[in-house]
């Protein structure tokens, strides 16, 4: 290498360093979140495969219905499948935030996955509205986390009250061993004890388990009057109901809203008499529109809540919000009558709401007053 080429190399290196420094500096000068003109990008995360896929599919339908209500080109939705698993939810969230640059997200579906993805939403100032995560922990998950379904603090207390009001005093809880089941179990157990009842067993099973004979054997040994089943996977719910019947338990059966699904009725005679608490499955207007849109199919679990989550985002965008920060601010004052009831978010991003009580009779859910 002669002097001239050494000199030239030096100049080139210096130029590259200065230029890259300048571009990095310029990028830092840009506002953190720039949303280009064109559709506002919205992410969707939830299970489209795995044990909870049926929830994901039904929510997706609700979201699609709401997205069709605004002019084409206003929003663009990017769907990511997470199997309801925390690790997949984090990956999907990171991808949506860094690659797709979404402003808001509808999801996650399962509480554990939502809680795992929440810090990324908060750090990047991206709004997350869950249509179905009911864990009490979600209330404190951060400013950017909202939901269109009431917390289990409400449902668990309500459920425990129903059992107590039936005159039953010895309760056993069979719950899935993840964020949703654990949080719900804590609430039901505490509330039932407060009421003056006795909780004789708390048995857990893995989220996708279909063999619960030993857990049920343990429950049977404590001779409960009532059994509260908490699960958000229809496969596990069907297995639990069948095995409860086969092992000859004579207790009254109660279930969380995860057991309100057409799939659970496939347990046949084993599901008879099951009483479930359920959030609204949609106003009659929503049900009619859903039927018209999807070949006569009734809305599945959380379809109405999914619709409301997307509708809330739509309203903020129509009001001029484009970035996550703007949507978050606008949501604080958003209030409308949605498919699942009146929607307005409190300081923690929660909605209030009532529950329906339904009992399985002749293979169908029948409302109870």
């Amino acid at each position, binding site marked *: 290498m002669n002097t001239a080429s050494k000199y030239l190399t030096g100049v080139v290196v210096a130029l590259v360093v200065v230029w890259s420094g300048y571009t990095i500096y310029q990028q830092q000068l840009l506002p953190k979140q720039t949303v280009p003109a064109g559709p506002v990008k919205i992410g969707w995360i939830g299970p489209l495969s795995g044990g909870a896929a049926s929830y994901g599919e039904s929510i997706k339908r609700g979201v699609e219905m709401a997205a069709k209500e605004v002019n084409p080109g206003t929003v663009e939705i990017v769907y990511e499948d997470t199997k309801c698993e925390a690790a997949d939810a984090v990956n999907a969230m990171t991808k949506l935030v860094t690659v797709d640059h979404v402003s808001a997200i509808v999801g996650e579906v399962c509480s554990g996955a939502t809680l795992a993805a929440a810090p990324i939403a908060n750090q990047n100032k991206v709004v997350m509205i869950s249509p179905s995560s009911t864990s009490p922990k979600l209330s404190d998950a951060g400013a950017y986390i909202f939901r269109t379904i009431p917390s289990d603090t409400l449902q668990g207390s309500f459920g425990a009250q129903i059992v107590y009001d039936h005159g039953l005093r010895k309760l056993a809880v069979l719950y899935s061993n993840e964020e949703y089941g654990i949080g719900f179990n804590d609430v039901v157990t505490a509330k039932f004890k407060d009421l003056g009842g006795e909780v004789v067993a708390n048995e857990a099973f893995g989220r996708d388990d279909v063999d619960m004979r030993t857990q049920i054997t343990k429950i049977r040994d404590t001779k409960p009057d009532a059994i509260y089943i908490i699960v958000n996977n*229809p496969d596990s719910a069907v297995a639990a109901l069948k095995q409860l019947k086969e092992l*000859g338990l004579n207790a009254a059966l109660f279930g969380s809203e995860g057991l309100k699904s057409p799939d*659970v009725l496939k347990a046949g005679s084993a599901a008879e008499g099951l009483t479930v608490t359920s959030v609204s499955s949609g106003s009659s207007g929503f049900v009619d529109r859903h039927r018209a849109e999807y070949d006569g199919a009734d809305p599945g679990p959380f379809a109405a809540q999914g619709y409301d989550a997307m509708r809330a985002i739509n309203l903020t965008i129509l009001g001029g919000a484009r970035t996550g920060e703007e949507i978050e601010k606008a949501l604080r004052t958003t209030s409308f009558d949605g498919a699942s009831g009146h929607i307005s978010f409190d300081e923690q991003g929660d909605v209030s709401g009532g529950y329906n009580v339904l009992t399985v009779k002749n293979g169908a859910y029948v409302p109870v007053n």
Partner: protein
Amino acid sequence: MVFSQLIANGLIAGSIYALVAVGFSLIYSTNRFMHFAHGNIVAVGAYGLWYGFTRLGLPFVVSVLFAVAVALVSGWGTYRFIYLPLKRRGASSSILLIAGLALMFFFENLILLIFGSSVKTLNYFPTVRGLTILGATVTPRQIGIVVISLFFLLVLWFVMRYTKMGITIRAVAGHAELARIGGVNAERIQELSFIVGSAIAGIAGVLVALEQNSTPFMGTALIIKGFTGAVVGGITSLPGAVLGSYLVGLVENFGAWFLPSGYKDAIAFGVLVLFLLLRPAGILGVTKGVRE
């Protein structure tokens, strides 16, 4: 009463694990690689029964044969179209293991794509309150599962022990190279064990579909338990695989009685780790003979 119920729970679970484990062991012993998609072949059998019975409306017995046939063809297909071409290109057993993992995801998602994620129950036998036998509550269907499972395990043992085919398979399992020198077409026997193993997986699939609802992901859960049973029993020994599977079924159910039931799987895998540490060859495994 609780004791006998736990024994019953363990035997029912163990019977299904055992059918999965023997097929896995049979394929492993002749081929010397981990066919992790074996559990998914069980799932194919379960969905085959569901499809044949509820969708095609076939008589039950015909549906069962259909299910076993579908499983057999799928398992055979993995060998013919995936493993064999890879082997011919000189793939090591770790490459084949990775191919097996890929097949596992392939089958899970293929089933999901074709059948969707809704609950698939057969309800061929009505869900009834079980009979009380020696203090344990079991349904006739569950007794059937244990008996049918034991029957096929015995048939397999007999075939392996006394027939020419069984002896040849064992020869290849014992030392493929020596068997080849002795005039045995080892590749043919390896293929044959895939066929037999997959047919057994089909039978396991039928029993699982009758007892539980089928899910696209059931195969992975089953192979984890079947694999644990096979390793605990001594991976190249078929009677070992059966013993190991029953041990896993019993231990996880008894363990869940004494410990919080959320640890059920952890208990099963704790046993696996213990065996790997203390008796790597398993209950009936031998440490002499072929080594990789």
